[in-house]
């Protein structure tokens, strides 16, 4: 029958007269991370002016370090938010992962590597549980992970108390495996006058990897789809549950990674740590252009968001501003970053065609 048809009754019409091909600058402006980048540059220049102490390489690297401790988990949280879910347990999971390793190995006298790997399994299990419960019950992830947040927070304290009799883990820096783990998770490269923490490298590596996954792989496509419209994604055959559970586990993995950094950098961990950081991750993601409602965002943006947060929080100190107002400055900076971001996004769409 295909022969019976006239060649192209409905075939390719000529190029539509109002078909638009966007210029490079417009394409650039439309990328989710550009707004965050511009905001970062603006804030960076602002602080270069008002905070003389910031104008040195070591200061910049301190900011990078600070950003990386937020940024690593934020990469995962950003992906999760693109996938349409939240994780409020990420902050305390960091501490739980570190504590697990420290308490387990110290009190049984086992090589730290064993504990680190078991701790990874534990964290992934928590991530899996979060994801499984969210998908199975249909309860919003905000609530489920708030539950795990509370449970982990309590367990961190309760278990540590039972095991050590105090509220912090014991110092592990004399134990087997410490040196290698310390190198992986907390090494500091001395480059001339500046100190580059290995976490900065990890942070950028994770951000780039995640950007690649999101933009260039099938899994990335699925992540955008489940966040943008889970029922539609399911209808065209995307395995929604597996993708979302995988995202929760990714966050858990990065949480574990950061937990390892804290443990091997400070050698002890206080059981109460990490509370409140879950919001810093979300802030980094959102300042970086991730949509709260899912389906839109980008890992490089999230990395920039973490950088904006790290820079702002430290540069307030560099600028020597009154610490009582610290939070107020932070709030204003946050709003500014978001507004710049928004303005840039608007710019990218208002250019007219002839």
């Amino acid at each position, binding site marked *: 029958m295909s022969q019976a048809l006239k060649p192209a009754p*409905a075939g390719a019409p000529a*190029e539509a007269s109002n078909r638009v091909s966007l210029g490079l600058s417009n394409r650039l402006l439309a990328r989710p991370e550009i707004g965050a980048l511009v905001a970062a540059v603006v804030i960076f220049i602002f602080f270069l002016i008002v905070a003389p102490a910031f104008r040195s390489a070591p200061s910049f690297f301190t900011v990078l370090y600070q950003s990386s401790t937020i940024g690593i988990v934020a990469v995962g949280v950003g992906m999760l938010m693109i996938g349409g879910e939240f994780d409020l347990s990420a902050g305390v999971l960091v501490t739980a992962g570190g504590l697990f390793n420290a308490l387990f190995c110290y009190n049984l006298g086992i090589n730290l590597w064993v504990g680190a790997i078991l701790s990874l399994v534990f964290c992934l299990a928590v991530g899996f549980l979060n994801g499984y419960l969210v998908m199975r019950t249909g309860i919003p992830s905000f609530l489920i992970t708030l539950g795990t947040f509370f449970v982990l927070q309590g367990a961190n304290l309760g278990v540590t108390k039972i095991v050590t009799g105090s509220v912090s883990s014991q110092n592990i820096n004399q134990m087997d495996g410490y040196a290698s783990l310390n190198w992986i998770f907390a090494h500091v490269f001395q480059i001339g006058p500046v100190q580059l923490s290995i976490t900065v490298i990890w942070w950028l590596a994770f951000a780039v990897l995640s950007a690649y996954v999101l933009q260039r792989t099938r899994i990335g496509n699925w992540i955008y*789809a489940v966040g943008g419209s889970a029922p*539609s994604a399911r209808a065209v055959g995307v395995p929604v549950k597996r993708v979302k559970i995988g995202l929760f586990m990714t966050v858990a993995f990065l949480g574990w990674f950061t937990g390892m950094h804290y443990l091997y950098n400070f050698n002890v961990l206080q059981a109460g740590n990490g509370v409140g950081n879950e919001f810093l991750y979300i802030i980094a993601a959102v300042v970086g252009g991730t949509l709260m409602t899912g389906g839109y965002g980008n890992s490089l943006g999230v990395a920039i968001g973490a950088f904006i947060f790290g820079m702002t929080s430290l540069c307030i100190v560099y600028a020597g501003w009154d610490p009582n107002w610290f939070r107020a400055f932070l709030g204003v900076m946050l709003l500014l970053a978001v507004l710049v971001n928004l303005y840039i996004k608007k710019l990218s769409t208002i250019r007219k065609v002839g």
Partner: protein
Amino acid sequence: MTDTLQEHADPTLAKGESLVQMIDVGKTYGAIRALKGINLTVNAGEVTCVLGDNGAGKSTLIKIIAGLHPHNEGQLLVDGEPRSFASPRESLAAGIATVYQDLAVVPLMEVWRNFFLGSEMTGSKFPLSGLKTKDMKRIADEELRKMGIVVKDIDQPIGELSGGQRQCVAIARAVYFGARVLILDEPTAALGVKQSGVVLKYTAAARDAGLGVVFITHNPHHAYLVGNHFIILKLGQAVLDKHRSDVGLDELTRQMAGGDELAELSHELQR
């Protein structure tokens, strides 16, 4: 377009073999009964038209075949085996592609990503292997042009397209990926005359390529142009189930309209 269909059609299809069969299928949504005692067969190389009033249960029927909702009464046989799809993924894996009435697109995603969503082209089987972005864009653009749709920018979020353009994307996608069975839920509803024509030709081409087609429409003319078999649903039950040879366009129209006819209406409205 027809080459697309021929290319992607499952070569093992034998005309007339039964691809999907429903035996006494029923479905309730909580306290609401949507379907009851439905018997239907989709044969290779045939178009089965499902017709009926609004709310009659047509979409529910095809959602069962598509794996979106499981049925809760009766049996669904796919390629002769009883199945109850837990998700559309399973149904797709069985070669069944669907155009949903609400289209199932992700508004924020680019047109080409939507086109390939769930069936992306990658370099290798490795989960992190790169997408063949260029190929995918080219194919999506080509397939849309074949339907007479030129989107202004294949990188545009699909949410910015007009209703009919979105519908065309969904149809082009299903046609491209449908290997054994093609399900179309009111595909021409939002389409212009030209596009409707294209969709009807696609339907015919799919039939001729040996696929089983389920075609839902409110337009008896459209139905009669391509259908081999007609089922009219009313309040969740089949009230007519006839082969093309047993029913004329007039009777079909009368049955669908419940006695009224457009001609009669036109008479009434005459000025």
